């Protein structure tokens, strides 16, 4: 296996990087200061079979909780995204139990009462803000729960957009709510039932089903490679600077 110059440079950088102490589940390790928590744990000899996923900050598997010396605060981050700091005192919380309600989505209509029925614990929220403080994606969890309590599913869907379902909010919740499950239901209801439908999509689908484009498609399918190449290179394209009112010369399929 050949190593490229880049690899060699990275390797030297890793070897030359200053080692700093971090505490993984209470045990001290010296790790290069340039590494992410995930890489640092692997450097220290840990092998991931859980608590690791996309390594790209979007899957929510590697949620990590840590503290710093002389600081009472609880810090969180994704292990794959957070760079180590000296004397960081960490553990991973790859899973926190949170019950998801079972429902038949097609029986729902997007009414707030449906969420109240499925997640009565929603009303146990005391707005303590522990959830928002712990979220590694900076989602305003308390705010979307507040929106759901007042029946605003659309606002909750918008606020919870960045949620990666890591479960840290549920782990800190005083009211014992499974916030991220409730938010997911809100986003599903919003997408399926509350977001306005694209009327032009409906029209297009109807046109397709009515067979409007069948002849053209069949002609294309029957054409040989040369004809296709001619049609493709000679097609009329919308200019990059065209305004809202641009229409093609050939309006057959509009």
């Amino acid at each position, binding site marked *: 296996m050949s190593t490229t110059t880049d690899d060699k440079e990275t390797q030297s950088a890793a070897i030359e990087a200053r080692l700093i102490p971090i505490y993984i589940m209470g045990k001290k390790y010296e790790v290069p200061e340039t590494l992410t928590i995930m890489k640092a744990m692997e450097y220290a000899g840990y092998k991931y079979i859980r608590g690791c996923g996309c390594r790209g900050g979007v899957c929510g598997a590697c949620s990590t909780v840590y503290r710093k010396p002389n600081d009472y605060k609880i810090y969180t981050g994704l292990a794959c995204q957070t760079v180590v700091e000296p004397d960081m005192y960490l553990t991973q919380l790859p899973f926190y139990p949170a019950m998801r309600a079972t429902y038949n989505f097609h029986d729902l209509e997007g009414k*707030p*009462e449906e969420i109240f029925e499925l997640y009565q614990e929603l009303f146990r*929220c*005391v*707005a*303590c*803000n522990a959830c928002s*403080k712990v979220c590694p994606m900076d989602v305003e969890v*308390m*705010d979307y729960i*507040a929106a759901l*309590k*007042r*029946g*605003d599913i659309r606002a909750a869907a918008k606020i919870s957009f960045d949620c990666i379902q890591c479960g840290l909010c549920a782990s800190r919740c*005083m009211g014992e709510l499974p916030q991220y499950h409730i938010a997911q239901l809100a986003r599903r209801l919003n997408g399926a039932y509350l977001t306005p439908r694209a009327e032009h999509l409906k029209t297009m689908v109807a046109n397709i089903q009515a067979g409007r484009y069948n002849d053209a498609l069949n002609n294309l399918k029957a054409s040989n490679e040369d004809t296709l190449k001619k049609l493709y290179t000679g097609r009329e394209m919308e200019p990059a600077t065209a305004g809202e009112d641009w229409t093609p010369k050939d309006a057959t399929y509009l």
Partner: protein
Amino acid sequence: MKIAYYPGCTLKTKAKNLETSALACLDALGVEYEELPRWNCCGAVFSLADDDLIHMVAPVRDLIRVQERGEDTVLTLCSMCYNTLARANDLMKNDAEKRKTINDFMDEEPDYEGNVKVVHFLDFIRDSYGFDKLKPKITKPLTGMKVAPYYGCTLLRPKEVALDRPDNPQVFHQFIAALGAEVIDFPSATKCCGAYQVLGAPDAALQVSYEIISDAVKHGAEALALTCPLCDYNMGKRQDQMFEKYEGAKDMPVYYFTQLLALALGIPADASHLELNRESARELLKTKSMI
């Protein structure tokens, strides 16, 4: 005058008729208000434990939101929200040690010292707007309508946040009189409807609510005026359960006080969303030619 407006969870859904009628009234009266752009549920009840501070956080957070908007007064419509916010406010004003602990705990929020004033629509009309200023604006008085004002608990107790004397309050009576209706005074006007016991002891809550309505009927009321969405549930929606349980229970039209104000101000009925009231409420207004 400009004030901040705090709706509370229920006003956007079940008690939409309370909100839409109230805001239409504020517009008609020329009161400038702004709904807080960011707010959370206040918790509905004030925590009565001396050592419990976490349950103060929710209402205090809302008061901080008012402070953030640069406002010094917040208007509430829901009586439970009024009581909770007002009592939390008093705690922050008067108890230095708890104020410090709560401010320290909410380290992500600016400190709150109790500078905001919490008002309910009723005392706003009485004290800030004035009944004298209101009366000339009543273009469609509710003449001949026998309305019993029902205060409930949270507007009058405890004394620290009471809008009026708990034993012989007048503010709601004055409000109904200002609308041109016939005020029906009845002893149970300040008796509890059962409130949250609709969850824990529903039969008990049903009985006390039934007794209140019966008392109003006995004193000649043909309509009940309310300020609280939970009272509206116990004494409005749950009337259907009363008919099943209590022989002789009659259907009593129930309205939010702001719906009556809206009608009296001549505001079109759709602002009051009367479809959320009992059918008897709509029928009564029809027979009185008010809709």
